[in-house]
């Protein structure tokens, strides 16, 4: 029997569990029944016994570890199998709240640590839902319904009530079935609304393909993220008025930092793993430029020259040369001189490339709009000045490369996607990915030749 708190830490029973089990004095105590559940989890690797959680606090940390390490080595899944044992739900819920409180109090709602905890929860729940996919569809559907109805009324919800979820960007409004503003989620509503339109096809199948478990899962994940965010914000506000935070929570916050640093070092120490998410200058590889950049470099022949050169090309050309790994960095608010201190590369390569593209426009951009030179400097972070000088740096921000989504809205004519574009959401990701693939091909060729 799977309890809803296993997939929704904000359900009513979850609250009861927290008040029953979550007393402060219990949090750091060895808990026999938790140990029992962990040890009796099917497929659990027990070799590393001292790393298995014995307390709420340790379990909280294990959740965090799993989500940070799971991408670095596949085998580690077996070490954390207990996280996917439905019996763990009570301990799981308490440790979830513990984790939220630790980052809320120590690092605040807008911190990187908070984002990692949000990702962690989303990863865990989505993995659990994934595992549940082996269960019959009816079972999944009604479990999700139960879990969702602790947060919203799935028979009566308007898309405008889901703005926060849509803003997360993982569920697009075009995936929702809308009728008069109402979101059709449940099968009975689907039939009532659309049943008469469906001929010669099985309505249940149509429902599952266009909504069903898939939409319910996405909604649940989105709502949990929104609720978790809110919860962390509230705890943070309350903690400002608190005299002394619980030392266990503070300790956990320190542990979180340690795990985070360990994950960071693993990521960069891994053999060749991060070669192409550099955060230092690397030479251009023109063959790896995405179609939109190529188009823009050849000059824009119609309207929208300004946006294309200033808003789109300038950030791309500068980041791809100086810091192509910008989006893999923790801190994205960097200055251009952090990576090009003498501005040599900027003056010798970046600016000339932008200017050449500007001149190739018809009519040439600077001919009728010389002020755009100032705007280019401003997007590089050097304020609104005709000369690009170090002393002005910081007056404006160094714009990060525009996402594909933004490009499509701002200058649709620029976007003619190739096959490779399907896999990415930002031209700079395309560039990094393509460079990696090209390198791989080259290595392969060398190896083949060698044989």
């Amino acid at each position: 029997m799977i309890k809803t708190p296993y997939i929704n830490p904000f359900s009513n029973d979850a609250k009861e569990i927290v008040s029953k089990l979550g007393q402060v004095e219990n949090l750091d105590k060895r808990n026999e029944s938790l140990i029992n559940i962990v040890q009796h989890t099917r497929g659990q690797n027990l070799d590393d016994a001292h790393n298995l959680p014995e307390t709420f606090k340790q379990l909280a940390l294990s959740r965090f570890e799993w989500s940070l390490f799971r991408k670095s080595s596949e085998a580690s899944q077996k070490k954390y199998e207990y996280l996917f044992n439905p019996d763990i739900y009570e301990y799981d819920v308490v440790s979830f709240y513990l984790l939220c409180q630790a980052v809320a109090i120590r690092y605040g709602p807008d911190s990187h640590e908070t984002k990692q905890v949000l990702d962690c929860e989303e990863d865990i729940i989505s993995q659990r839902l994934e595992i549940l996919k082996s269960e019959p569809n009816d079972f999944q559907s009604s479990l999700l319904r139960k879990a969702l109805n602790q947060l919203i009324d799935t028979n009566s919800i308007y898309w405008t009530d889901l703005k926060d979820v849509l803003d997360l960007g993982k569920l697009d409004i075009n995936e929702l079935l809308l009728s008069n503003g109402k979101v059709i989620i449940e099968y009975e509503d689907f039939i009532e609304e659309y049943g008469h339109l469906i001929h010669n096809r099985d309505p249940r199948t149509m429902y599952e393909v266009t909504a069903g478990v898939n939409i319910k899962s996405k909604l649940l994940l989105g709502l949990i993220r929104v609720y978790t965010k809110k919860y962390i914000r509230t705890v943070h506000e309350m903690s400002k008025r608190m005299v002394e935070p619980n030392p266990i929570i503070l300790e956990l916050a320190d542990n979180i930092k340690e795990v985070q640093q360990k994950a960071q070092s693993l990521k960069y120490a891994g053999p060749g793993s991060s070669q192409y998410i550099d955060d230092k200058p690397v030479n251009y590889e023109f063959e790896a430029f995405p179609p939109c950049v190529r188009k823009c470099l050849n000059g824009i022949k119609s309207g929208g020259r300004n946006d294309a050169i200033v808003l789109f090309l300038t950030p791309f050309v500068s980041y791809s040369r100086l810091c192509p790994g910008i989006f893999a960095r923790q801190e994205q608010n960097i200055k251009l001189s952090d990576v090009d201190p003498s501005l040599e590369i900027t003056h010798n390569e970046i600016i000339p490339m932008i200017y050449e593209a500007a001149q190739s426009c018809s009519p040439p951009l600077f001919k009728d709009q010389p002020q755009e030179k100032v705007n280019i400097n401003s997007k590089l972070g050097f304020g609104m000045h005709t000369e690009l000088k170090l002393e002005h740096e910081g007056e404006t921000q160094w714009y990060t490369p525009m996402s594909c989504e933004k490009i499509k809205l701002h200058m649709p004519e620029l976007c003619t996607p190739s096959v490779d574009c399907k896999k990415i959401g930002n031209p700079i990701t395309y560039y990094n990915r393509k460079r990696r693939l090209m390198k791989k091909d080259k290595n392969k060729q060398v190896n083949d030749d060698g044989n």
Partner: protein
Amino acid sequence: MMEIKLKPASNYERKLFYREEWDVKDVPDFVLNSLTSREFGFDHFGQGPNDRYKTFLDDLRLKRFMKAKQPFAAYCSVAFYDAPGQRKGWQKSELVFDVDAKDIPIRTCDCNEGEVCDKCLNQAKEIVLMIKDVLHGEMGLKNINMVYSGRGYHVRVLDENVMEASSELRGQIVQYVIGAKEPDLTNTLGFNSLQHFIIPYGYSKNFTKWSKYTILHLTKDSKLDNVNNRLLKDVLKSRYHLEQDQWGLFRGDIGPIRFNKVMSAVARINMNITDTKVSIDLKRILRLPSTLHSKVSMKSTLIKNIETFDPFDDAVPKFVYERK
């Protein structure tokens, strides 16, 4: 209907218009009711709205300003601010769709670039009606205002449920409303041959409806990405199937691979049906309804009944009739 030439208004005609014809009461209530929260912008010399950050305490002051300055063009923000004079303290913004007749990618008239005629203006009206249908019927939004802008139409939504939406969300909304994205029909249930046109509801239905409109308005000179002349010719030859919504036959005629090519290109055309930049901009200024579009001598007009609205009857300033 008399023949009306869309030519610029002279300085004298502009003065005449603001002195004798323009009335502050013609400014829509949805602007007057929120006057003090809005930023105004003016173009005095026909070089773009560079007199911005203007605010008005009441209707009377707006009236005096307009009568005194007789601007070439007048605009007001879609945004509501605590301090509109500094563009600070953003509260909310109207959700806006801008359909400019001169920019419709599938015009079937013979207009030169930048020009408009009754045919493409009529097409703009058709598009605006389709937009309104989606906003109302599927999205359930209320307080939808339609404005004739002088060379096209603005749809201005003042439904509280959507006015606080972020720019990102507006991006999603506008793409839904105009069918600008190919529906993602991948699923884990193993239905690989699912097509948007067999789904009679939801976004797929909307995408199908817009795509039909677009394909039926293509001409032999239309430019479609990744679609060569040969394929375009075949599309034009087989599109009659779509008049009866026979998408399966249409797809069969041109072949599944080429069909996918066409649909990708059509989605991208749909994207240009409205100026998406305007919809995602939370701080945009739009032409103030009731004022003069001096480049074409037309009045920007709040539309009471879109079905019967005809710009050449309802948006022509008096001075145009007096021209020799």
